[in-house]
């Protein structure tokens, strides 16, 4: 019952890689739920495990995986239990699709973009080539790419156009969840705004959900309904966007928000001293402790996840206000 309100429910997800230097704990015990038809932004510094989280959800694992455990439920169905072939056939691009980071390089240079957009429909929905191209044509209209571009090759398209093509490709099978991995970071602000508006319109019209992975707080605030903040492989705060952008809970989120330039106001931009801990051997207590201005004795122990008015925060400061309920029974209520 409760679960089916969520399009995605992730519980205790771990993804470790083996490298020459040791084991990288890229995703370390992440749990969260996404309500249906919502847009969630995952914020964090470079190298905090955002993209690894996206890969873990889509099970796109490199060769050097050390640990990959946890529970991922999609529309209430535990997809971790599926074997590789079933997962490929029934989940990838049918129910979760993805707009990759740097769409510049995300299209095959020697195939026409029309073929590439139509391909998932042909493979997964069993449509003919003509029907696939017709669907691709519809998606092109939808995201604002001229139809004639279907016959072009990726190198003939500009960066913004390629990004739109990548979005059209993600939409063609009408999945219930689209993971956007820094979809606009390589584009100019006008194109960014344009694409963000397109994404908003698509969300309203198709009822799909987004996970938007970015470090660009300003751009993402426009689209976000929920915000999850990642730090050193863990989600340290998850909140609805209205609360988050006005009153972030976790000290890291507060610092993060203070680093965003504002048009009005005279405050100088802040930055967080120090660097994020190495994911090779993260500190045993709170991972942000060494950079945290509000640090106290308890921070030497690993903080549990506290639930507070529907928000989740992983910080000892909220020990008394928050409760320690299991994430599965908790839903975040949007505040309008």
């Amino acid at each position, binding site marked *: 019952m409760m679960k089916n309100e969520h399009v995605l429910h992730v519980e205790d997800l771990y993804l470790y890689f083996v490298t020459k230097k040791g084991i990288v704990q890229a995703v370390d015990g992440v749990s969260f739920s996404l309500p249906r038809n919502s847009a969630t932004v995952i914020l964090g510094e470079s190298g905090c495990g955002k993209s690894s989280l996206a890969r873990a959800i889509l099970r796109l694992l490199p060769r050097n995986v050390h640990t990959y455990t946890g529970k991922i439920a999609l529309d209430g169905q535990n997809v971790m239990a599926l074997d590789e072939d079933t997962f*490929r056939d029934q989940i990838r691009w049918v129910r979760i699709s993805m707009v990759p980071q740097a769409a510049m*390089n*995300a299209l095959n240079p*020697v195939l026409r973009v029309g073929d590439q957009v139509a391909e*998932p429909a042909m493979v997964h929905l069993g449509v003919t080539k003509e029907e696939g191209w017709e669907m691709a044509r519809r998606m092109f209209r939808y995201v604002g790419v001229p139809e004639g571009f279907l016959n072009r090759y990726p190198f003939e398209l500009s960066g913004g156009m390629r990004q739109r093509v990548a979005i059209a490709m993600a939409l063609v099978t009408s999945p219930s969840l689209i993971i956007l991995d820094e979809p606009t970071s390589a584009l100019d602000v006008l194109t960014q705004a344009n694409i963000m508006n397109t994404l908003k319109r698509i969300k309203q019209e198709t009822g799909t959900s987004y996970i938007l992975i970015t470090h660009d707080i300003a751009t993402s605030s426009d689209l976000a309904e929920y915000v999850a903040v990642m730090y050193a492989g863990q989600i340290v705060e998850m909140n609805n966007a209205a609360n988050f952008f006005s009153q972030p809970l976790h000290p890291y989120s507060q610092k993060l928000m203070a680093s965003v330039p504002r048009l009005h106001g005279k405050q100088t931009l802040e930055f967080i001293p120090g660097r994020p801990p190495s994911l090779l051997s993260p500190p045993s207590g709170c991972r942000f402790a060494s950079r945290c201005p509000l640090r106290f004795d308890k921070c030497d122990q690993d903080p549990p996840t506290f639930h507070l008015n529907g928000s989740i925060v992983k910080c000892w400061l909220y020990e008394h206000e928050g409760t320690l309920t299991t994430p599965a029974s908790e839903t975040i209520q949007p505040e309008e």
Partner: protein
Amino acid sequence: MRLEEKRLGLDRPFVVRSFLFLRNALTLRLGFAERMVSDAGSRQVRLIILERLPTTLLLFGTADLLLFFLSVFVALVLSRQYGSFWDRVFVALSPTSAAPGWFYGIFLILIFASWLRILPFGDLVDVPPPESRVLYALSVLKHMILPTMAIILSAIFISVYSWRTFFLIYSSEDYVELARAKGLSGRTIERRYILRPTLPTIITSFALMVISLWTGAPIFETVFNWPGLGRTLFQAIGLFDIPVIVGSTVIFAYLLAITVFLLDILYALVDPRVRIGGGHKQ
């Protein structure tokens, strides 16, 4: 005497003569051989060469095509199992490709012809040649096995090694990752997202390899007693028959040019980015 001098152009200055020779060579007016005679009895260099050219094309064309497809196949398989036993075997054996084809040819002849006596030492067909066409073709095929094996053996390790490296490089591209996210099957990804984008690179490397194989033809054909262009050149050098030497060299130059030209056309077919008129917007 005067007339002969005039006919050969010896009354002109050296520079003019050089250009005349060059023109004659380029237009395939190759003149008459001094000592060699074609099988049909002609002294014309052009006829001597034309008689030998098809056998060379047959042998090297077959071997190069086999080499190409075999290498692509093995390289794809090995790129899938990077670091496996066979992968390491091919990497370890790649320096053996430094030796030319005839070097392996000698050993193959020793093993299969001299010792096991299952394949002929050399030549194009059995002596006497079989009467029926089918038997003739089969006999030629039998004689082609060893030289083809020698060519493939001399080049396959380095080509598999370098191509499997190309495949590995190209398979870490973002679009391959995305193809995997799209839920395409492993075969489709391999064919459309790894092999296709890598083909231009592979064709370039193959063109270079084919050229280096051409240059080995004179000794190679001599070792296998293969009545081709290469052996004709070798014989001509032995007999000091300058018109034939010059003629063969010119034909080899043409073969190289044609090879490169054909591969260039192929290149444009597999890579839309190099098509003329296709690159109107970068």
